[in-house]
């Protein structure tokens, strides 16, 4: 008995060890692009009408009329043949390419475009709000579509063009209303999970990865080019440090996780790693990290107090200590990329802020926030104790470090501020229901084709429900500003009036400071040169290396078209 088990164990260990050293497994790997950072839970939904479909559903499988290269700030006609045109003030005209086809071989026509939009008129979908100002969508013929508006929201429309994927009428018209948004895939109706028009389709999904397979006879091969990876494997990852380990073992081609230590691996040629910029900040900005104040709370409802805080925070210290220079501090307007076209120099000169604790102290003293009780902390002007917490999700280590630094800096000028780390679900709940003092967030400040989305995100007027899901989490109320933002939305680009309104918006935001733009969170991208090369970088700006959901049509598909396998 004894010797039997021993032998068994020894043989088993020997086999495992021999195999380990005898083989190095690289088969099947060469034609696969492996990415991380996009999926955090087992993949389960490929319905473009669901509010959180798996990354790639839009962009890889279903395609919008346009792509938008977020780095270059340019629109790329995708299903559309050329740039769309406002042929009248309230009529937008799009001509489709002749080539687009659905994966099942049917032609993609203007009628599918009409169907996609009319579906949201008939049913309550995520983009139903468009029908607040959209009047009619008509197909002039198989290839031409006209959108007629009541009062066109020109700015928002720019985002719609690349955000809404066109869906096949012949399949989606079969799905009953109650399932339209919640059904996970099309197997029941079309015999396959996905019937899109894009370069990739559903191949497999297991609890730990999502696999997209190239559509070899994709209509765009002739027009846009053929993507090199046959498979795209998006790994579900739990933790950044695990991804870092896998990057060091050369298992991942594109990591879109925030990886501590990026500068040291990027600058060590031994690791075969590329980042977009050779040096700091290594990554392209993706969104602006904001400090939101709950403007319904005593003290935080005071613009003087909020402005004083903006002078007391030193983002440079956050950039250095929490991010090792992988981000850049934000402009006082919070704008970046293509939005900078609307940046107002005058507004910044007059009302801008920068780190200057002395100014912060002066402003606090002037506004009456002094230490009246002698306990070392400043009090409210009426003598009440003043203490706040800054909330971020527990485990988001970069944000945890950042609020520790912010709290330190505010405590240095006598404000009793503590960091507070809570579970993400609680953080989110608190944020949406304005149950916090201050918090860091960036959900509504992501890159886009128009600064309207940023302003709407930091000062949305959708703040009167129990949950504020559109941004402006501190429920800052300013009718005048809301009106300006709405007015900007209704102005086409290039009009002098649009610049004037943009300046007014920036002035109000800087004067009232409902939230402080702190730093630009990066589009974290660590690219490996082991299996693939010709990655987008500052020297080779061919696209955007980001596999997050909603980003594929913002330059990531362009990246796929340019990637080359390493022989």
């Amino acid at each position, binding site marked *: 008995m004894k010797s039997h088990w021993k032998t068994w164990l020894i043989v088993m260990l020997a086999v495992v060890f021999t195999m380990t050293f005898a083989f190095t497994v690289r088969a*099947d790997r060469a034609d696969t692009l492996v990415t991380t950072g996009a999926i955090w839970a087992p993949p389960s939904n490929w319905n473009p009408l669901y509010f959180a479909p798996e990354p790639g559903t839009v962009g890889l499988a279903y395609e919008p009329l346009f792509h938008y290269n977020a780095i270059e700030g340019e629109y790329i006609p995708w299903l559309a043949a050329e740039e769309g045109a406002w042929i009248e003030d309230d009529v937008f005209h799009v001509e489709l390419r002749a080539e687009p086809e659905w994966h099942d071989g049917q032609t993609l026509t203007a009628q599918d475009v009409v169907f996609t939009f009319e579906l949201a008129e008939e049913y309550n979908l995520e983009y139903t709000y468009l029908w607040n100002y959209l009047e009619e969508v008509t197909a002039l013929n198989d290839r031409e579509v006209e959108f007629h508006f009541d009062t066109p929201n020109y700015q928002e429309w720019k985002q719609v063009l690349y955000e809404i994927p066109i869906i096949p009428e012949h399949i989606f018209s079969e799905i009953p209303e109650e399932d339209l948004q919640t059904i996970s895939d099309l197997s029941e109706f079309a015999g396959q999970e996905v019937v899109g028009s894009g370069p990739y389709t559903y191949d497999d999904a297991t609890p730990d990865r999502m696999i997209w397979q190239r559509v070899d006879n994709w209509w765009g091969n002739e027009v846009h080019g053929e993507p090199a990876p046959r498979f795209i494997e998006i790994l579900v990852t739990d933790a950044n440090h*695990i991804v870092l380990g896998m990057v060091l073992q050369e298992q991942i081609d594109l990591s879109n996780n925030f990886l501590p230590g990026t500068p040291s691996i990027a600058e060590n040629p031994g690791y075969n790693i590329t980042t977009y910029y050779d040096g700091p900040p290594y990554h392209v900005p993706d969104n602006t990290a904001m400090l939101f104040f709950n403007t319904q709370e005593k003290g935080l409802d005071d613009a003087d107090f909020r402005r004083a805080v903006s002078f007391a925070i030193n983002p440079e210290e956050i950039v250095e200590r929490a991010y090792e220079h992988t981000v850049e501090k934000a402009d006082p307007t919070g704008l970046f990329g293509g939005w900078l076209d609307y940046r107002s120099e005058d507004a910044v000169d007059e009302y801008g802020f920068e780190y200057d604790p002395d100014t912060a102290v002066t402003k606090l003293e002037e506004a009456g926030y002094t230490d009246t009780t002698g306990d070392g902390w400043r009090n409210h002007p009426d003598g009440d104790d003043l203490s706040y917490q800054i909330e971020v999700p527990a485990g988001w280590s970069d944000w945890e470090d950042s609020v520790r630094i912010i709290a330190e800096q505010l405590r240095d000028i006598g404000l009793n501020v503590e960091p507070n780390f809570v579970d993400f679900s609680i953080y989110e709940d608190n944020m949406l229901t304005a149950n916090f003092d201050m918090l860091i967030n960036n959900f509504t400040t992501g890159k886009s084709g128009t600064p309207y989305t940023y302003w709407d995100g930091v000062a949305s007027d959708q703040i009167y429900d129990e949950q504020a899901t559109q941004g402006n989490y501190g429920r800052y109320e300013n009718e005048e500003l809301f009106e300006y933002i709405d007015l900007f939305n209704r102005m086409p680009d290039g009009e002098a009036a649009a610049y004037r309104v943009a300046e007014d918006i920036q002035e109000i935001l800087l004067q009232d400071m409902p939230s402080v733009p702190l730093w630009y969170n990066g589009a974290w991208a660590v690219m490996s040169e082991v299996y693939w090369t010709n990655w987008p970088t500052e020297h080779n700006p061919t696209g955007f290396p980001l596999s997050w959901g909603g980003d594929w049509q913002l330059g990531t598909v362009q990246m796929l078209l340019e990637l080359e396998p390493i022989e």
Partner: protein
Amino acid sequence: MGKYFGKKLIIYIITFFIAVTINWLAPRFIPGDPVTSLLAQYQGPAAGRQMLETRLRTLFGLEGSLIQQYINFWANLLRGDLGRSILQFPREVSEIVKNNIIYDIAVLLPAISLSWIVGNKIGAMAGENEKIDRYIMPLFYGFVSSPYFWFAIIVVFVFAHSLGWFPTARAYGAGVRPAFTLNFIIVFLRHWFLPFFTMFLVGLGQWSIGMRNMVIYEIESNYANYLRSLGARQKLIRNYAFRNGVLPQVTGLAIQLGQIVSGAITVQVVFDYPGLGRLMYQAVQQQDFFVLQGAFLSLILMVLAANFLIDIIYMFIDPRIRLSYSEEE
């Protein structure tokens, strides 16, 4: 015999009922509402949101009072319906559990049984042989006193990062598909080895130390001395000592099972290795009630079943139990 099982069965049924009830109750005390939190990503109009919320609550069985939900829960459970995952909506929990449990079995079964068998053998040897005792036991004390997660990190650091012999994480690498091919089996084994090894080593320490102390005690006991004075060979005495020493070890296995399974959670998290443990960890973090319930339920069933099995084994290895029940009949 029948009475022995009857008694045990009733205890198991009561344990199951209480465990499942706590399991149902606990997630509902977590602050925050999972549907609201899921819908936080929804950007559409209020009417659409309302419709989605109603539909999701129905699909999740979250409508009605708590009592109603509890009754529905049992009704569904007895039909084998564990509900749908909130996070992996609309996937069914039973399917998710099934996909994960394979990995638990693959790692835990060999780790527990091998560490128990090998640990007991080495422990018995150490109890008798001073050299083994002196050189190996301190090492095992080290194993047993290290928490699983810490030990796992050390194992990753040494065998994956420094030596580069094994991959750091996951069940199989990128670009590989599960298939019955040599290639996949090798990849799978390479990934499987370190989580298995960690669980094995910690267990090994535990069982060998227990067995060592037992054997030392048994060998010095009266019956052993008596045997010795009768002139019995050392091997015979050793065998008796072992048989007596193994009894508490079997009981220990039953008691420790729950702890080993929870140790597996931390090992799975460190190695990013699939399994019920990691599934529960994710479900807690993301408030996925139903997955949490399903995973926990499976763990309860597994631990109870293993205990039951041990009860049966106990009857065979301890004649006293067998006799006391068969005499009553």
